[in-house]
């Protein structure tokens, strides 16, 4: 590969999946505890420490490192130029790596059992918050590099459209910069002073609102690599051009716009906000169906072109004609199915009126595991299957284990999350270690929990098979040509308006929407009489 970035990318994605494997083990163990079987080491202390670790890894470590690594890959291959600064990139990696260790160690010691949403007044060890902050700061290095790389390319290629894959990656960089604002302010100004003992009181409503600012767009940050793969890798793998390049750009821009001023739908059930801004943000949340539908339409159209090019006939014949043996094609289809189911659950969550039925029940857990654990992570696997051979210059002789792994994950996530939806409607709360299944009111839950536990073990098996698949690549046969080819549109745009080739307009619009959507909800804590709560340390004692 050109520009010697292999090790940088391998390090990011390698650490990302190593932590994923560990968190998958914890996930399966947690399911076992909830099922009523008493697995070894099950106490409230270990269970909630495990939930904290699982959430911290899957929320902050795994997707961040993956997205960084994938972003470097795209910047180098799509722009065909070196990274602006390898030193900065490695510095970002080491910050994130040290942050990961600093965050995980206190959790393992039982000094940061506050769950990854760290809702104060519960306050854990300062090292936990510093660790998460370091991960975020490390990722800011990546943000800077992506924006910088695109600026260099535009300087060298005036008037030409930025390649779609890079446009999506830089969208994600800006998205992430906006996203991390809320949680960074919460950590720096509220949590770290509290965990150091500098402050004794904490404004709980403010902390929750700042966290909500981050909590929703962070999911779109996780999601965007999958969308980039939909647009620029899946059609290529299927053997067809992309149906429309402009659709892709519009989708990325709309995702940036409608992921940010919407986080208060996580606070529908909160007593510290009035209805007006909850309603506004509910409306803005609903707009996210636009980029989703655009994407499903464009990718389906691209796939139809591919199927027909391969001789598929009739209304649905093209589907059968697609090259299903290729992991990227298979994963894209499976991901769409999961996105569909997950989206359905999400519509209920974001519905201003229906949320009360399922808020903080297993329904919510089911929703985000379907979207993130399902639709997104399955694309992370497919992306890795595509780029890891390029990084190593080696190619798997047999892709059957790869397909098996994707199917296992797909079936596993369905078996895990479908029962959770049912349980949510039955009223099972999330984040509880033990249930009294002897209680007739709860007894009907247990069969569903058992089924979902089985799904959890399928996912664990799939995650381990993935690690195995990647490991065997190191002994696979070398290939000569290991260049990356992205899908090109049927009609590649020769020139684009600035609005579709840059972010100035959109960043201003995000700023406007954020001020409207969060100005009062955040400002009210400084205008009203509010009573802060006493910081509640969980990391002290003998």
């Amino acid at each position, binding site marked *: 590969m050109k520009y010697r970035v292999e090790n940088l990318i391998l390090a990011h994605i390698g650490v990302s999946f190593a932590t994923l494997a560990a968190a998958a083990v914890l996930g399966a163990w947690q399911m076992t505890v909830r099922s009523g079987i008493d697995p070894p080491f*099950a*106490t*409230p*202390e270990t269970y909630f420490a495990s939930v904290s670790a699982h959430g911290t890894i899957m929320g902050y470590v795994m997707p961040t490192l993956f997205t960084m690594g994938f972003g470097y890959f795209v910047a180098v291959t799509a722009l065909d130029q070196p990274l602006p600064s390898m030193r900065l990139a490695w510095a970002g990696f080491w910050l994130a790596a040290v942050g990961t260790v600093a965050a995980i160690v206190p959790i393992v010691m*039982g*000094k940061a*059992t506050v769950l990854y949403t760290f809702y104060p007044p*519960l306050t854990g060890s300062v090292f936990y918050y510093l660790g998460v902050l370091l991960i975020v700061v490390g990722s800011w290095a990546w943000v800077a590099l992506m*924006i910088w790389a*695109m*600026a260099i390319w*535009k300087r060298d290629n*005036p*008037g030409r459209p930025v390649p779609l894959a890079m446009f999506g990656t830089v969208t994600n960089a800006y998205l992430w910069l906006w996203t991390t604002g809320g949680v960074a302010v919460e950590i720096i100004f509220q949590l770290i002073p509290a965990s150091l*003992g500098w402050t*004794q*009181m904490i404004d709980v409503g403010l902390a929750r609102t700042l966290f909500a600012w981050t909590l929703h767009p962070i999911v779109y940050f996780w999601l965007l690599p999958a969308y980039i793969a939909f647009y620029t890798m899946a059609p290529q793998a299927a053997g067809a051009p992309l149906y429309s390049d402009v659709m892709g750009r519009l989708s990325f821009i709309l995702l940036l716009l409608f992921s940010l001023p919407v986080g208060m739908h996580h606070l529908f059930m909160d007593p*510290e*906000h*009035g*209805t*007006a*801004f*909850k*309603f*506004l943000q509910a*409306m*803005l949340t609903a*707009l996210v169906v636009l980029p989703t539908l655009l994407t499903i339409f464009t990718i389906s159209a691209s796939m139809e072109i591919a199927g027909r090019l391969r001789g598929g006939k009739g209304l649905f014949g093209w589907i059968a004609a697609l090259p299903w043996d290729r992991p990227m094609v298979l994963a894209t289809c499976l991901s769409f199915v999961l996105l569909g189911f997950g989206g359905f659950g999400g519509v209920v969550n974001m519905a201003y009126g229906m949320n009360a039925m399922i808020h903080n029940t297993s329904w919510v857990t089911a929703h985000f595991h379907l979207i993130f654990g399902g639709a997104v992570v399955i694309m992370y696997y497919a992306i890795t299957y595509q780029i890891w051979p390029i990084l190593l210059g080696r190619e798997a002789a047999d892709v059957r284990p790869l397909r098996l792994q994707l199917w296992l994950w797909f079936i596993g996530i369905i078996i895990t999350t479908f029962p959770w939806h049912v349980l949510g409607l039955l009223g099972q709360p999330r984040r509880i270690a*033990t*249930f*009294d299944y*002897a*209680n007739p009111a709860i007894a009907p839950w247990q069969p569903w929990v058992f089924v979902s536990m089985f799904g959890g073990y399928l996912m664990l098996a799939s995650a381990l098979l993935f690690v195995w698949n990647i490991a065997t690549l190191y002994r696979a046969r070398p290939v000569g040509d290991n260049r990356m080819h992205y899908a090109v549109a049927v009609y590649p745009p020769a020139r684009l*308006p*600035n*609005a579709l*080739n*840059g*972010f*100035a*307009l959109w*960043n*201003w*619009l995000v700023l*406007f*929407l954020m001020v*409207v959507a969060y100005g*009062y909800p955040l400002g*009210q804590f400084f205008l*009203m009489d509010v009573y802060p709560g*006493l910081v*509640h*340390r*969980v*990391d*002290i*004692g*003998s």
Partner: protein
Amino acid sequence: MSTDQDKGPPDRRAEDRLWRFWVSIAAGTFVVASLLVGLVVLPLREEARFDPWGAICRAIGIRKDAPTATGKSSDPPASSVTWSEGTRLGLLAANPASGGTIVKDTCAACHGEAGVSVDPQQFPNLAGQTQEAIFKQLRDFQTGARTSDIMAPIAQALTEAQTKDVAAYFAAQKPVEAVGSSPSVSANIVELAHIGAPARGIPSCYSCHGQSRSGPEEAPVLFGQSASYLEDQLKKFASAERRNDMFARMRTIAKQLSPEEMHGMAMYYGNSRPAKP
């Protein structure tokens, strides 16, 4: 933000203006319409009277009709200690050395100069007990929230600052050494202590009295006490003879324990460090 903007030829700038115009119109219309519905239309529907200003205020959480407390509290509060910023800062500022002087004169005869009780069955060991727990009990003896013929006059002779100093002194002492090994108690007692009983809504003892201190501020450390003292206190909570536990936390739990369980718990924690399960 304008750094990545191409400064192109005039037709580009016209194109940019067009984008800016339509994007602003679209976003502005949507936001204004949503706010109009969320801020005015929906809240207006809630009240019979037409009062747009009141509706807007309600929608952003400003209400003039804040409900007032109904009824009077006939009983004194379980404890009048408040876990506020002032209390915590006072505890942090306490002086263990001056607490030690008071202990020597006032407490040592029963609780021992280093907090090791002369008769643990009657007087609890205070060495290594948390500052919050000792302070809270002393204040409760002062106010009568916890009754004791011996402790009431002693506590009443102390100022609030002195109670904090005394608490700081005892908290800094070396905890009582483990006496022998954990007495053998049945498995269900160990489970109750470390896992709890979800069926009965009893959290594990460990979740408040354990090392990680994730529970209420005033929850004391239990190991190092005499088993009979612990059992006695559990019984008093169960019968509500002792009722200085805030929000009836211990009364609620103790009421649900059988006499055998209370005895087992007391044996498990009494005089030894509880073993991990």
